[in-house]
């Protein structure tokens, strides 16, 4: 029976005069365990010769799985996988007994040896019950990427992807302009636009743009199918990954929400006194700030309009990093900064009166020709969240904030999100965000294949009672109700956390490499119980 063709390899780390463990003793101990057909000392496994010894021993002996008795497996998983593959075994047919960090390093000599023996026994019992999981190391993936969003962030991501060999379907929802480039922040200069090279992107053959909404997403990561409505016709598009780049309102705006006028427009209208208020609590910002965006706009006004008086009000001057110098430049040009201690009161229009409390002076008031908000409003993501099945976090944005997910990834595999609301929210921040999200996509797709399967969950359909618990608990939406009316876990989406396994009331789900029987066998071995 295949479960009894287990080999044990004992690394030669830890030998020598200050060794705490008797590695040879461990080899003998392992060899005495029932079902071990091979127990061998090898040269250090991290060295080429140790690996070669293992590979030839496996090939000669006919074992179909092995235990490595060595240091922590965390830094060696790839290594063991390649040893397994080179020996003709399933890439995951191994287990590691970490007798270094979990025994030799933390206990004294006789206890460390005893513990190492227990760890070996546990690893053997675990691998004995191992069954080969579904595993594809090189599933082909599409080199096309769908980028959803009509603004600067979306086109920046698109440009990055195209420059690095992908093709892009840029999907711009209904309201945005039909002319490419779809959106430019009107008050920024040419320099900023060149950072993102949008005009180049718009001429490239590898970019197709669609002015439509996505109705539905089908398929799996690496091979999604997007269903779009284009002028009444249902059009599908295939892509390997999806980037969501919802566009917030980032411009300065008038009180009524319409975009702030440019310096030229203001000059023509003869408006001289402009007050820029910070975004208040209603916009969701943690503090009300004078931002680099506001300062750049103020600078553009004083440069273009002779005699302009521009006032910035806010609690904090939010000029991070090298933007610090912007405040000084603006002040030198005559822009006035006022710290406020309370929400300013605006009366008007025609002309406006703004009153507020200054921490030094007390009550202050200003008359102005024009009042603007320097606001960053949360993008509208409800529809996107629903169609792409990405949850929304407690601040109303697409969920991708776990620090151990790399920046840009969401809980939906293959779906990435580009976000604005960090840093200075200026063009360099945007360029870096776009670049790093594009990099994530390229990491997934640029080699043309991806790995799926491994330690994934699987439903025993006979036992499943279709209670939907697994569908509800899975953070990755991996389970679905299949044709037979029973639950199935899509291995392309499963991340192997095992929550569904623990939750299933019918005990119909198990997980490869961490099965119920394996965990129990490990417990028993740890507690000195027989098989």
């Amino acid at each position, binding site marked *: 029976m295949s479960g009894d063709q287990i080999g044990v390899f004992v690394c030669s780390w830890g030998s020598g005069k200050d060794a705490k463990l008797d590695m040879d003793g461990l080899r003998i101990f392992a060899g005495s365990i029932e079902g071990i057909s091979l127990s061998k000392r090898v040269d250090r496994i991290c060295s080429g010769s140790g690996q070669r010894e293992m590979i030839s021993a496996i090939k000669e002996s006919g074992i179909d799985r092995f235990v490595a008795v060595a240091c922590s497996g965390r830094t060696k998983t790839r290594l063991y996988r390649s040893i397994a593959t080179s020996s003709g075994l399933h890439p995951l047919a191994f287990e590691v007994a970490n007798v270094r960090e979990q025994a030799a390093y933390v206990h004294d000599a006789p206890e460390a040896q005893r513990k190492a023996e227990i760890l070996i026994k546990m690893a053997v019992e675990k691998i004995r019950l191992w069954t080969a999981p579904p595993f594809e190391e090189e599933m082909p993936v599409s080199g096309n990427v769908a980028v959803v969003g009509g603004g600067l962030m979306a086109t920046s991501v698109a440009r990055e992807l195209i420059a690095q060999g992908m093709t892009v379907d840029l999907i711009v929802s209904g309201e945005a302009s039909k002319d490419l480039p779809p959106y430019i922040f009107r008050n920024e200069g040419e320099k900023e636009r060149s950072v993102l090279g949008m005009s180049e992107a718009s001429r490239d053959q590898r970019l197709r743009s669609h002015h439509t909404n996505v109705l539905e997403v089908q398929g799996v990561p690496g091979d999604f199918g997007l269903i779009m409505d284009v002028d009444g016709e249902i059009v599908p598009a295939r892509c390997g990954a999806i980037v969501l780049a919802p566009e917030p309102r980032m411009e300065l705006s008038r009180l009524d929400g319409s975009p702030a006028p440019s310096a030229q427009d203001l000059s023509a209208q003869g408006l001289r006194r402009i007050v820029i208020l910070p975004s208040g609590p209603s916009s969701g910002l*943690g503090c009300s700030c004078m931002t680099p965006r506001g300062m750049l706009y103020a600078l553009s006004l004083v440069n273009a309009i002779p005699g302009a008086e521009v006032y910035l009000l806010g609690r904090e001057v939010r000029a991070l*990093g090298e933007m610090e110098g912007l405040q000084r430049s603006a002040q030198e040009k005559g822009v006035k900064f006022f710290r406020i201690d309370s929400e300013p009161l605006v009366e008007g229009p025609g002309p406006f009166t703004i009153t507020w409390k200054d921490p030094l002076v007390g009550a202050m008031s200003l008359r102005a020709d024009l009042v603007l908000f320097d606001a960053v409003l949360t993008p509208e993501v409800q529809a996107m969240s629903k169609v792409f099945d990405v949850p929304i976090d407690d*601040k109303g944005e697409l969920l991708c904030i776990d620090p151990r997910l790399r920046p840009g990834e969401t809980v939906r595999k293959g779906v990435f999100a580009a976000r604005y609301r960090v840093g200075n929210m200026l063009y360099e921040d945007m360029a870096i965000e776009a670049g790093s999200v594009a990099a994530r996509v390229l990491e997934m797709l640029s080699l043309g294949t991806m790995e799926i399967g491994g330690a994934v969950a699987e439903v025993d359909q006979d036992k499943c009672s279709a209670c939907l618990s697994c569908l509800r608990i899975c953070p990755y939406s991996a389970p679905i109700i299949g044709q037979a009316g029973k639950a199935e876990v899509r291995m392309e989406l499963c991340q192997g956390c095992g929550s569904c396994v623990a939750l299933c009331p019918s005990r119909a789900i198990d997980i490869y490499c961490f099965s119920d029987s394996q965990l129990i066998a490990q417990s028993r071995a740890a507690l000195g119980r027989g098989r």
Partner: protein
Amino acid sequence: MKRVAIIGSGAAGLSAALSLEQRGVPSIIIEREGQLGGLCGELGCKGVERCVRCDVCLARNMVAQARSLPAIEPLRKAELRSVSGQPGDFRLTIRETDQGGRRVIRAGAIICASGGEPFDAHLDKRLGYGELEDVITSLDLERQLSATGKITLPSNSLPPKKVAFILCVGSRDERFNAGYCSKACCKYSFKLAQALRSIDPGCSVTFFFMDWRLYDPRENVRAWSSGEGGVRLVRSRPAEVLLGEGSRPEVRFALEDDTGIESETVDMVVLSVGINASRGSAELARTLQIETDAHGFMRSSEGAPCSSTRPGVFLAGTCRGPKEIVECVKDGAVAASRAVEFLEGMR
């Protein structure tokens, strides 16, 4: 040659190496110290039971990942001495600081992720660092957290009950050619205070700040401080820290509304130090034949933030300006993209 040499194994360097690996490009990391991780390796987790998103574990986990990938070759205790060859085929001469041996490695592109340095608080003499025992820097505090998870006073090893944070030490300060904001300090100071108060809810905290610049604008230090009691926010840049009553540090500062000068005596003063260009960066820039800016950071090429002024040499992380950790991770990924593009272009 399809390999990238990465200088530095901090958050940016590791991020670049991991990204390159996923793109099928091997890398070799040149790290001066004996272990990987850079400055992030010295920082501690500021959550106690609950994560506060200090992102230090993000950097830490990259070390473990990088070590597990054969395509990433880390050279520890290695220093870059010179670079010859040309873009597409660089020859880097490395000195092994332990044995003094030399080695030449070849790479098609170079990513400089050499990091920055925390401001040396000894230089700001009025704040008492190095004179008063219980005046420490944020980095000292991080090291304590990282080693033991506990915070104690250097003078008597007891936990502090009253802590003052002074922000913008060595930042926004022309005296030290640091007229910029170091971007990360408000964030990490806030998280350090959260850690302090999670460990001991009875510990009171005072922040002396100029502007609150939390990197993520969705975070709200005022909401946190008003809810907690025992947290005071004072908008003032303290004039000095002296030895006060009971040998405890005393912070002297002007009041916000300019009505006078006040003193606050605390158990511990934490100086939130900014990020400067590292001392070796001028020489490194010369070795790499790239330009630096007025503050000594590596200069980006116009319109391309992660490209240096020399083709084939890219920049990531605090070596090109102060950053917080997630920015460094993003920078690494972008620099990797630039390097891959460059190598493709060379074929």
